[in-house]
């Protein structure tokens, strides 16, 4: 379970207070207008925003003071998930061995992860030789290899076409379900939430304006959600 209690994030002339609970194994979509702070919430959970008042628990463990790398979290960013000068294999291997001196067993694990996301045979290519979708599959392979209980997705598929995006979302939710991962995903597309998320939260004007099971949220939209959906 992920719990955010009165988590207060303050930037220059903007602040938000977040209360949100996501059950273990749940898939929560964060939707809301641009600049509402969706990505900031993910960055805070991942440990990139310093000195945040309030409390953040992941599986009842207090996250205060933990470095990003120490948190039980794997994250996919909007872009630059892959290092452009490293091969796909090296990029994925960073998830298990940061020195990149891999033994046979680790090489096999990397290979398996690549097969799992449908990139077999591409391990020696550089990211620029892959399509956008393939690149995000590679990033996903690394995120899965890291075996973290929580997966954070910061619109990683925003640049892909609708069909490809749906494919990727299905792949993510299948893989997450298989690995018992809890997912929080930021998206601009309400239909993405409807497609994959068990839970949806609307971020609006510095707070969570509405949250609950996805079906309920869209069945009984709040005024803010109606405004947002237009």
């Amino acid at each position, binding site marked *: 379970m992920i719990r955010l209690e009165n988590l207060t994030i303050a930037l220059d002339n903007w602040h938000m207070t977040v209360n949100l609970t996501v059950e273990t194994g749940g898939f929560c979509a964060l939707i809301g207008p641009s600049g509402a702070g969706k990505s900031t919430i993910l960055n805070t959970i991942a440990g990139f925003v310093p000195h945040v008042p309030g409390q953040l628990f992941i599986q009842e463990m207090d996250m205060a003071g933990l470095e990003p*790398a120490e948190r039980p979290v794997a994250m996919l960013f909007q872009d630059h998930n892959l290092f452009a000068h490293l091969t796909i294999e090296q990029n994925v291997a960073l998830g298990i061995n*940061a020195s990149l001196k891999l033994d046979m067993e680790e090489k096999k694990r990397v290979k398996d992860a690549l097969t799992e996301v449908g990139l077999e045979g591409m391990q020696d290519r550089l990211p620029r030789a892959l399509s956008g979708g393939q690149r995000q599959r590679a990033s996903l392979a690394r995120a899965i290899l890291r075996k973290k209980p929580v997966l954070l997705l910061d619109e990683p598929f925003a640049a892909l076409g609708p069909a490809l995006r749906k494919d990727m979302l299905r792949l993510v939710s299948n893989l997450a379900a298989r690995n018992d991962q809890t997912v929080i995903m930021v998206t601009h597309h309400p239909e993405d939430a409807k497609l994959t998320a068990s839970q949806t939260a609307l971020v609006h004007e510095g707070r969570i304006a509405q949250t609950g099971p996805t079906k309920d949220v869209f069945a009984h939209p709040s005024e803010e959600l109606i405004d947002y959906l237009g």
Partner: protein
Amino acid sequence: MTDKASRNAFAFGIPATIAFIIPLGLVVVSLWALWSVTTNDLATEQAGGRPLLSHLIDDIYLRRALTFTLTQATLSAILSTLLAIPLARALATRSFPGRSAILSFFGAPFILPVIVAILGLLSIWGNKGPVQAIMSAFGFENFSIYGLWGILIAHVFFNLPLATRILLQGWLALPAEQWRLASQLGMNSASIARYIEWPMLKERLPGILALVFLLCTTSFTVILALGGGPRATTIELAIYQAIRFDFDMERAALLAFLQIILCAGLALVSRVASTDFDTGQSLGGAVLRTDRNGRLAQWSDGAIIMVAVAFLGMPLLSAFIRGIWGLGLHGIDWGQILPAALRSTGVSLASCLVMLLISLPLAQLSIHIEGKARRFVELPGYAIMVAPPIALGAGLFILLHQHVSVDDLALPLTALLNGLQAVPFALILLTPAMAQIKRNYGMQLRHLGIKRRDAIRIIHWPLMRKPLGLSLGIAAALSIGDLGVIALFGSPSAPTLPLYLYQQLGAYRMDQAYGTGVLLTSIAFAFFVLFDKGLGGRDQT
């Protein structure tokens, strides 16, 4: 909670502080040394009833040096910039085979040892050169490369390529839509110049003028070789003469102080006047315009490009040929050349080290500091820019020469100052590269928890080696060819290669000097290529 990680992954607190303090400290200490000598002088002058200001105004020679400094810099800046306009336009309009070769060649004067370029200019424009022959055939007997004309020619030689490259970028940065629109509207060259080109020029010209002006104000080797008589002495050279000819430390201090104040003022003005140019931008492609398709326009563009290439290429070619001939005639005096080359190599490598030790931490510091404090981090680079090495060297020398032998001081001081001089260039190359790594991968690195050693090996080194190689190449080439501080303090019996060349020039052993010039240039370019290509490696993106 996250600052700790950030510091671990990127900035090294103590080196950054040291890198920050050293350049500033050197400038301050040097200024203090100069000032203390000057005020001593001031006190004695006042005892004689002459305050400093009147002393300054009364000093014809100093006034003359100041006027000449400003005059030649102004003229050099205007000439270089004005000539660059038609040249850049021609290069922007025409695409032809060899264009990219010409553009790379335009980068060569930057790493070419100044003294070698002067040898080349002497052979073309000098009293026995072809230009002189043509001019006297037309009855112009009075032209001499020594003095203002020679200085202007040399400064245009060095700065025309720079100004042209910046302006060419301006032309190529004009949106293609504007050209299409112009040709649809049937605009002629005059209206294109007025509505499309002038707004671009207006934005870029002040910055180029200011940049060339600043470079020419602090130009030393050119003035040393081509000027120096009472009619053509700049403040920078007057410092040299005060120490070398008059052994007048008070005067040297006064001049150095004046020079630093002048440069600080100029740098301030140029900062206000200029916007930052992205010099790494591609120079490929040509503008598609329909107004200059006529035969006349084609011929004139062709002629402009050919004259420019001849102006820049002939001296180099001639210096090279005379150098090879000189080497063939006199051979290489290994007993002199080898130690000199090794000294230069040592100085150059040491200056590379100084450059790295200062610019790497500074670049790191600057990408981690945001907002107004960032200006503060730029201060050391700025301090180096405004303190001319001769003035700085004079200050440090005045401070140290009672305690350390000049012979022991000359080479380390040269390496230190050469290294410092390279810092501003290095920062231009290193800071954006580092900032890009941080922007693109900073969060990723922390997220994956890659340790600093692994991160440097796997991420930073492969991505930084290109700008690092280039900045090391520039630093090495600049230092190998430098004839500044070493000319001031260098031991005559243990010269660096450029100083050895200058000694040959002074003794009028021209053939040997050209020969040494070829060797010096080869070494400078070899170092540049070794660092740029060897260390920088193939393209990494």
